[in-house]
C-alpha cells in the first residue's frame, strides 16, 4: 500500500485516525479505571488497524499478543483492585493545572507538526539496502533478518529487558496468583484443549517467522499466555515461578550471548552468523528465545496479577497483626 501517492487523503484513513485519536483522548481523560482501560484496549485495536494500513503485519501481531494481550490482561487484572480515592484537591487548582497542561501540549504539538512537515516524503534509502541484504541473512522474512541478524544486538538487549523485568517483578511481588489446587472439570478441559492449541500456535508463529510475519516475540507471547492458562488451570508441570522458572528465563539470554561468542570464535565478529548455518542458528536462537520470553512474560504476569479469592482474608489478618504490634 502506498502512502504518498495520494495528495488527497483517503476518507477511510481519516476516519480510522480520528477514531484512534478519540479513543486515545478517552483513555486518558476518563476518571474511572474500568472505563479508561476499556478505552485503552479499543485504542490498541484501532491502532492495530493502522499497523495493517502502513504494511506492518508483524507489528500488528505483536501488538495483539503483547500490547493488547499481555499489557491489556495486566491492566484488566489490575481493575480487580479497589481504586483508591484520589487525593482531595481543590477543583480550581485541578482546572488550572489541566489548562496549563493543555496549552503546553498544544504548543508542543504545533511545534512538532512544524518539524514533521519538513520531513521528506521520499523513502529512506535504508529500506532497499536492508531488503537487498536479506538475501545474505539466511532467512527470507526481512523483519526476522533485521531482528536476528543485522541488528541482533538490539534483539539481545530487548530480551534482556524482558528477562530482568521478570527477575525484578518476581523479587518485588510478595504474593502471586497461586495455582489452583482443585481445577474442576471445566478448567481441566481448558488445560487439555486450549493449552496445546496455544503451544501449537506458538510453534507455528516461530517457524513461520523465518519466511512470513511472526517470530520469537509473537510466539513467546502466545506461549506465555499458554503458561498462564496452564498455571491457572492447575497444571503443576508448567509452573511459572521459583528458581526453575528463573533458570528457564535466563537460559535463552545466556544461550544467545554464547552463540554470539561462538560467532566471535568462528568469524572474528560478535554475534556474526555464517551463511552456511545462519538459518539453523536463527531457528535455534528463536526457539530458545521463545521459551525464555514465554516464561518471562508468564512470570511477569503472575507476579503482577492480583491475588485470587481467599487472600482478602490474608490481607485482613496481616493488617490486624500490624495493628496489634505497632
Amino acid at each position: 500500500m502506498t502512502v504518498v501517492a495520494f495528495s488527497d487523503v483517503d476518507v477511510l484513513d481519516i476516519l480510522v485516525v480520528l477514531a484512534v485519536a478519540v479513543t486515545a483522548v478517552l483513555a486518558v481523560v476518563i476518571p474511572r479505571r474500568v472505563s479508561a482501560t476499556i478505552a485503552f484496549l479499543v485504542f490498541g485495536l484501532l491502532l492495530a488497524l493502522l499497523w495493517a494500513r502502513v504494511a506492518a503485519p508483524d507489528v500488528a501481531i505483536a501488538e495483539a499478543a503483547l500490547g493488547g494481550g499481555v499489557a491489556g490482561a495486566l491492566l484488566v487484572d489490575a481493575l480487580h483492585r479497589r481504586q483508591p480515592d484520589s487525593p482531595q484537591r481543590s477543583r480550581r487548582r485541578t482546572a488550572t493545572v489541566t489548562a496549563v497542561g493543555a496549552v503546553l501540549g498544544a504548543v508542543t504539538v504545533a511545534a512538532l507538526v512544524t518539524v514533521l512537515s519538513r520531513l521528506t516524503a521520499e523513502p529512506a534509502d535504508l529500506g532497499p539496502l536492508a531488503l537487498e541484504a536479506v538475501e545474505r541473512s539466511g532467512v527470507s522474512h526481512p523483519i526476522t533478518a533485521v531482528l536476528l541478524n543485522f541488528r541482533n544486538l538490539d534483539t539481545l538487549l530487548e530480551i534482556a529487558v524482558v528477562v530482568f523485568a521478570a527477575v525484578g517483578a518476581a523479587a518485588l511481588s510478595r504474593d502471586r496468583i497461586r495455582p489452583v489446587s482443585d481445577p474442576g472439570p471445566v478448567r481441566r478441559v481448558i488445560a487439555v484443549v486450549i493449552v496445546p492449541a496455544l503451544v501449537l500456535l506458538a510453534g507455528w508463529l516461530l517457524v513461520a517467522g523465518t519466511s512470513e510475519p511472526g517470530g520469537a516475540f509473537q510466539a513467546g507471547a502466545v506461549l506465555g499466555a499458554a503458561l498462564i492458562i496452564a498455571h491457572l488451570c492447575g497444571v503443576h508441570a508448567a509452573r511459572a515461578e521459583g528458581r526453575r522458572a528463573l533458570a528457564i528465563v535466563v537460559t535463552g539470554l545466556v544461550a544467545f550471548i554464547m552463540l554470539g561468542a561462538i560467532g566471535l570464535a568462528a568469524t572474528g565478529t560478535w554475534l556474526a552468523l555464517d551463511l552456511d548455518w545462519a538459518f539453523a542458528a536463527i531457528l535455534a536462537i528463536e526457539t530458545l528465545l521463545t521459551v525464555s520470553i514465554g516464561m518471562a512474560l508468564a512470570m511477569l504476569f503472575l507476579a503482577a496479577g492480583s491475588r485470587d479469592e481467599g487472600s482478602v482474608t490474608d490481607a485482613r489478618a496481616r493488617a490486624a497483626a500490624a495493628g496489634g504490634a505497632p
Partner: protein
Amino acid sequence: MVIVDIVVIVLLAVGVMFVVAGTVGLLRFPDLASRLHAVSKADVLGLGFIATALAIHILATEPGWAAVGVVAKLALIWILALIGTAANAHLMAGSRRRAEAERGTEA
C-alpha cells in the same frame, strides 16, 4: 455466483446481527449472569454464521485444496472460540458466586 454471493451476504448479516445483539446485551443487561448469557451464546452463534459465510465464499471463489485448508482453519477458530467462551463464562460466573458466598458469610 450471484446466488452464492447472496447467501454469503445473508449469512454475514445474520452473524453480525447476533454479535451486535450480544454486545448490546453486554452493555445493557443489569447483572453479570445475564450479561454472560448474552455474550457467550449470541457471540459464538454470530461467529459461526460469519465463519460459514467465509467458508462458502472461499469454496466458491477459489475451489481447491487450499480452500479446504482455509475452511478447516475457520472450523478450528469456531470450535476454539466455542470452548473458550463457554469455559470463560463458566469460570466468571463461578468466581462471582464464590465471591458472593464469601461476602455473605462475612456479613
